[in-house]
């Protein structure tokens, strides 16, 4: 797993993809901080983190689109699959490398807060809650993205598919207000409602388990998908 992780992680920085993702998010974070803190002169920092996490979703499809589609297109998967490693190692290596970039980009969001902390007392509980929520949300989305990437040789389709799923999961919340079973199920599925508890500075174990389960399920499905290709 470590060999695959190292290679994938490095490759994000040999092509500019890694730099651009981190830089774009850091710039966006800076901009929103400036807007809210200075122009609106509010000290309610939680609202900043609550809105900008959606921008983090922008980079997820970019990070995951190449994971398996590129390998299959360039036939480099033959090197991976004929090496004495388990499929689980390959999938986890790729998942964690994409997640590492995402985590770096997310943690960059702490920079403005650290700068502000020199001048004011910040609600760290809410900030940390938001960061943990964003990481979990992102991890779940990345596992879905990696899975979609394993379904196709086209990076564009992988990216668009992941983007569509992430938008749907973002807005499915709107259906939660409907009464009856649909509302209950949607509320249970909705990533956003799971995420919301973290934004209030609460560490909610059920939501945490929910996101971790999503990651486990989609990593598992990816492994099965890669395995099944050998049989066709």
């Amino acid at each position, binding site marked *: 797993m*470590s*060999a*695959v992780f*190292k*290679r994938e992680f*490095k*490759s994000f920085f*040999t*092509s500019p993809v890694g730099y651009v993702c981190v830089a774009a998010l850091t710039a966006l974070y800076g901009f929103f901080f400036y807007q809210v803190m200075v122009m609106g002169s509010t000290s309610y920092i939680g609202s900043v983190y609550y809105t900008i996490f959606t921008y983090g979703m922008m980079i997820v499809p970019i990070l995951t689109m190449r994971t398996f589609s590129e390998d299959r297109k*360039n*036939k*480099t*998967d*033959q*090197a*991976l*699959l*004929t*090496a*004495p*490693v*388990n499929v689980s190692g390959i999938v986890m290596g790729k998942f964690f490398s994409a997640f590492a970039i995402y985590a770096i980009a997310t943690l960059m969001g702490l920079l403005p807060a650290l700068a502000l902390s020199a001048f004011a007392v910040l609600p760290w509980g809410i900030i940390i809650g938001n960061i943990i929520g964003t990481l979990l949300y992102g991890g779940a989305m990345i596992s879905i993205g990696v899975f979609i990437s394993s379904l196709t040789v086209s990076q564009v389709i992988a990216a668009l598919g992941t983007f569509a799923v992430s938008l749907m999961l973002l807005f499915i919340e709107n259906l939660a207000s409907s009464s009856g079973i649909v509302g209950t199920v949607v509320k249970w599925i909705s990533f956003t409602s799971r995420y919301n508890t973290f934004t209030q500075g609460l560490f909610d174990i059920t939501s945490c388990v929910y996101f971790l389960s999503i990651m486990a399920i989609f990593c598992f499905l990816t492994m099965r998908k890669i395995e099944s290709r*050998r*049989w*066709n």
Partner: protein
Amino acid sequence: MIEVKNLTKRYGNNLALDNVSFKIEEGTVVGFLGPNGAGKSTTMNIVTDYLSATEGSVTVMGKNILEEPNEVKKLIGFLPELPPLYLDMTVEEYLSFMYDLKKVKLNKVSHINEVCEITKITDVKGRIIGNLSKGYRQRVGIAQALLGNPPVLILDEPTVGLDPKQIIEIRTLIKNLGKKHTVILSSHILPEVQAVCERILVINKGKLVADGTADRLAHDLSSEHKLIARIEAPEKELVMALKALARVIDVVCYGEKEPGVFEVSIEATPGSDIRRDLFAMLTRRGWPILSLRNTDLTLEEVFIQLINGDAVLINQDSEDSIIEKGAEE
């Protein structure tokens, strides 16, 4: 060493491999020959566990690929049809990655240097693979297969797309590798297989149709054993004298090719060799022999016959015995 038994592979309704069996002994260079789409790559992909067989088993050094896939993979160095190279890495980074991936236990720096020396890529080690020429990429692919000194090397069309000089270099390289490794290579280029391999397996439409050395294949497939000779002698006496030789069945004269020189074809009983008797008779009579060749088919002709389905060198009943014979050679 490598034993493949009753291998069958179906892609949906498409039968890619049909009950293929063979054994390969240690230290041989075996050529896999067949037209495009015959099932060469499929076989190689199954032996390296990239694909799974629909039926049948693969055993490498006594280890079954289904039971101990990772153990078998450690024994095999594989160069797929398209070398699995990450174009954004340098040669050194790539080999270092493959070294880690294959969990090689040798000294990393010296082993990678050694492999680069063997494949002659030391001077491009620091370059990005994407910027290398096809020949060098192929070498990097071979270098990758050599990492960890696996006892078995499987090379899928290693010389495809190379220029003639590179082809000769890669062939020499493979021949040298054959001294230390068991090598299976596939090709649809006959002279290549003939030049490099000790044993040839011909595969067509998913079936193994021949197995043996190049000479044996050519010999066995020629239905008749004729000699074509040019002899300086009077025509009628010559034909009479030749017909009088022991074991000669038929003599046909093709006419005068040079002044006073006649070309004749001499057909002998199957399995007999009359060349010495022929020479003795001609010297006794003082008739100089100017050329002599036999009509064994060239490998090209063998190949065409095999893939046209005119001939099969293995029939399913006596398959084992023929394969054993092939293995001994």
